[in-house]
């Protein structure tokens, strides 16, 4: 199951929803912050979930936007299995910082330091932006707060790393 399929299946598991409602939920909850799902792909993904018998359209045939989709018992079982796997399995995400650092010798000292300074600014801005998003979305259930804590923690770790690396590289004779 793809990330997009798991995401839509989860939203439909909460309660039966129309296609346009799913789009609204994805937008309102800012799910595009951490996963890729285009507006046009919602109906494509719904089609796949329907074909897999994980969701069923409730109302009489019509345009897909008007159908309400609900989860089937098989869909719920798949959702539980996939959510468990997503939570338990560590999936590494490679940062561009690694690709940049490996090429440090290619860059002039000034250019490399300036690039890292830029990264520090970007990370700080991102921390601020995430903080604003968290505030605007209030109230959030505790498990979503934990999701924000995760992203904030990653950013803080990166900020510390950039500061430490900059400090070292600047001091190095």
């Amino acid at each position: 199951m793809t990330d997009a399929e798991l995401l839509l299946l989860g939203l439909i598991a909460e309660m039966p929803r129309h296609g346009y409602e799913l789009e609204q939920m994805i937008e309102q909850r800012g799910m595009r912050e951490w996963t890729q799902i285009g507006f046009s792909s919602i109906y494509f993904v719904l089609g796949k979930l329907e074909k897999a018998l994980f969701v069923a359209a409730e109302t009489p045939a019509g345009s897909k936007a008007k159908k309400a989709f609900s989860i089937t018992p098989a869909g719920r079982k798949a959702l539980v299995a996939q959510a468990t796997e997503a939570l338990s399995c560590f999936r590494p995400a490679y940062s561009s910082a690694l690709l940049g650092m490996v090429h440090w010798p290619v860059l002039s000292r000034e250019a490399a330091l300036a690039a890292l300074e830029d990264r520090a600014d970007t990370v700080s801005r991102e921390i601020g932006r995430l903080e604003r998003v968290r505030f605007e979305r209030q109230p959030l259930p505790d498990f979503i707060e934990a999701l924000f804590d995760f992203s904030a923690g990653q950013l803080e770790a990166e900020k510390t790393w950039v500061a430490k690396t900059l400090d070292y590289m600047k001091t190095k004779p």
Partner: protein
Amino acid sequence: MDLTKNRKKLMELYQPGTEEFTLVDVPELPFAMIDGEGSPDHDAVADAVKSLFTAIYPIRREARERMGKAFVEPPVEVLYWADDMRDLAAGKKGNWKWRALITLPVWADEEMFSNAVAQTKGQMDEVPNTLRMETFSEGQCAQIMHVGQAQDIPALSERLYKQILPQNNLEPAGAYHEIYLDDWSRTSPERRKMILRQPVRPKH
């Protein structure tokens, strides 16, 4: 009372049974609140609730940091009353008054609250003029957990006001209170949990 240090009371207040109304003694608790008049349709209350959560965000944030695993998400609570209480029973919503509430940690004080509002008011379209912090105690209350649609509530109210209270020689003594335990955008109507609570006193 610090409910985070008294889990038994916390459960008693916020997880009553679904079978029968039970009597509880509700202690003094601090709340952030906003008042409204007229039909408490979903949008009116939703706006007030959004403002409340915006206003208390700094306190909630501090609570999560200070309290760690002792932090408990406070639910949205709404009091409903009418100048002529018969309008409440008759469902004449135009004459209703309501108050949206969220409990605050016991260590939150007026100063902390006004600082929080000062910090967050830029995010509110308009700071509701009834937005305030107040501490109150409901005392003895009859309450029940209801799981499901709002349309099932009148039958429960009928049972409470026409049977249970008179049988126990009790009468209503304050605003009718609903506590919403679920985020309605994440929970289907038939699974939504809410507590129906009515302060009571012995009937003379």
